[in-house]
């Protein structure tokens, strides 16, 4: 992966920058985005005629079908009821298989609302006491953990975003212990706060074609607290190292 190097840390104030550059960044962005948007999309823009036209086109055939086909509609309702009854009966005996639990999890409305890309992974992480824990992740790396009650055939809980696994949390901690900057903080008595996942998007270059493509990874954010002040370590998990360490003033702590 050919990640473009991040040049600084996530705060607004930067001690390493030329004075005024940071403030200029934000102001230039605000002003320029407004200028660009106002220029490209003038105040005379009116979507209503198009929306009105589309809604009219959509509703007309519906009314026509309903007006002509009420008898057919009644037949269809009966047919759907019969098929539905047969379907429900087929599900009644026994409990859900894990494969059915995965299907139930990935089609849950809450899951669909959270995961907006194509679903890349849907797998059962564990089954304990007839409760399956299913991890569903989309192609952008966004993930949810879903618990499915296999006996009652219902999704009982949807946890948003991946909690870092124990292994990844341990890997993040190991990186913090190894890095000389954070190990020095730990030796001075710093405590480690809640480790959280972050999703990092970068660009990967295919050496064969030279083409770039977007690539997402899960990293970890590890807060360290010492004397009422907080440092934040951003751990590149695949590389097993701290990519950025932000000091309490928002500056970046360089490697010694």
């Amino acid at each position, binding site marked *: 992966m050919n990640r473009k190097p991040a040049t600084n840390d996530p705060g607004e104030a930067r001690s390493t920058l030329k004075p005024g550059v940071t403030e200029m960044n934000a102001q230039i962005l605000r002003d320029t985005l407004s200028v660009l*948007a106002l220029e490209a999309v003038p105040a005379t823009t009116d979507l209503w005629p198009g929306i009105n036209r*589309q809604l009219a086109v959509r509703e007309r055939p519906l009314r026509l079908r309903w007006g002509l086909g009420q008898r057919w509609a009644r037949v269809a309702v009966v047919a759907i009821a019969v098929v539905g009854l047969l379907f429900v009966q087929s599900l009644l005996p026994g409990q859900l298989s894990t494969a059915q639990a995965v299907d139930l999890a990935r089609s849950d409305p809450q899951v669909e609302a959270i995961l907006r890309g194509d679903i890349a992974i849907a797998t059962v992480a564990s089954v304990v006491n007839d409760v399956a824990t299913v991890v569903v992740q989309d192609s952008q790396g966004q993930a949810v953990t879903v618990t499915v009650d296999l006996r009652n055939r219902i999704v009982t809980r949807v946890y948003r*975003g991946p909690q870092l696994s124990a292994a990844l949390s341990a890997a993040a901690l190991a990186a913090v212990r190894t890095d000389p900057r954070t190990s020095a903080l730990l030796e001075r008595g710093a405590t480690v706060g809640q480790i959280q996942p972050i999703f990092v998007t970068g660009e990967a270059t295919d050496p064969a074609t030279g*083409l770039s493509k977007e690539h997402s990874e899960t990293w970890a954010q590890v807060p360290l607290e010492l004397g009422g002040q907080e440092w934040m370590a951003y751990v590149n998990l695949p590389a097993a190292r701290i990519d950025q360490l932000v000091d309490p003033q928002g500056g970046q702590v360089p490697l010694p």
Partner: protein
Amino acid sequence: MSFERAAIARLKDGDIGGLAVLVETYQLQAVRTAYLIVRDRPLAEDLTQSAFIRAYERIAQFDSSAPFGPWFLRSVANDAIKAVERARRTRSLDSDDEDGAPAIVLVDMAAGPEALLEQAEDAAAVWALLGRLPARQRAATVLRYFDGLSDAEIADQLDTPPATVRWRLFAARAKLRTWLSARADQR
């Protein structure tokens, strides 16, 4: 906000006039936000139009006590991200530097010639920089600096943890900072 609630109540009763009020109120912000993300005005208008129609179809699911704007903008921003990601899957990122650069850039005509040149350079450079950002970093940047949303609000809009939003904004700012520093050195 009472006019908005009245419009939503009308819409929930099947009165399409309620949608007309919402379109009038939110269309400009939505199209502009979408445009800054997708960098294509017709596409931005199509996305916003589709989002309004979807809002009309799903208005029954909308909690009338909540403001309509964030609910709607969320839909537009996510559709715009998907559109960019779909487009990226079908073409090389190398072409990003050239796409959709605005032919005309608004400048403050009261400013002097040097300031005018700087403004035009800033706008062109920011536009080019935005085009190089991955879709989600770009969306976070637009929602922060154009729509003025907080980290938490952007996280809610993009269905992503606040820490991820902070990271994306950081990455975007870092790239801009690199450019600004280089430019400051040249002067």
